[in-house]
């Protein structure tokens, strides 16, 4: 199944693109997809346990993904 990975700020700069589509096994969890993301060129610098949002809500590492999910890897937020 295909999910869309969204990258922002320092993470987008490291990988060089703001989003990428990944083909992942059905039912893959957030942490499994993170491992695949880490294999992308430039993504080795991502921290061990980044915050992740699935479809615009923060999600835990074990959260199972569905086809078409939007998986955002959230750098430390700095609003205000």
């Amino acid at each position, binding site marked *: 199944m295909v999910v869309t990975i*969204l990258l*922002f*700020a*320092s993470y987008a*700069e490291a990988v060089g693109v703001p989003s990428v589509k990944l083909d992942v096994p059905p039912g893959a969890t957030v942490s499994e997809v993170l491992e695949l993301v880490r294999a992308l060129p430039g993504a080795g610098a991502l*921290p*061990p*346990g*980044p*915050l992740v*949002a699935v479809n*615009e*809500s*923060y999600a835990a*590492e074990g959260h199972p993904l569905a086809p078409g999910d939007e998986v*955002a890897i*959230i*750098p*430390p*937020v*700095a*609003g*205000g």
Partner: protein
Amino acid sequence: MRALLTREPIDSTALLERVAGRANGATVLFIGTVREVNEGRAVTGIEYSAYESMAQRELSAIVEDASARYGTPHVVVVHRLGELMLGEASVAVAVAHPRRAPAFDAARFVIEQLKKRVPIWKLEHYVDGTREWVNAGTAHR
């Protein structure tokens, strides 16, 4: 809309008008501005970016939460995106309430929650020409 992301300068007078009401005896306005020194480095400006759709949802949720928790519908927040110069307002929170204590508390609640959970980032530009993403103390999981 009580929670807004904008690329225009923040109009704090308009925010105060949004929360005004005769039942309210207290109005609190918080404005966050771009400051000239951060962590000992001279700043020339800040570029704000966001995961906009999620940031909008999170801001709205925080306003709803503050309204319920402190008992007033008169809560608004605006966050600026894009390039800001020194002294410009990056964020503003306005709260009106019959009493001053919950008005202060609700405004504080909104800005603290915003800093914790709204996906907004800032890229600081320094006098020496360098730039850096600010990791404002928020830990990873």
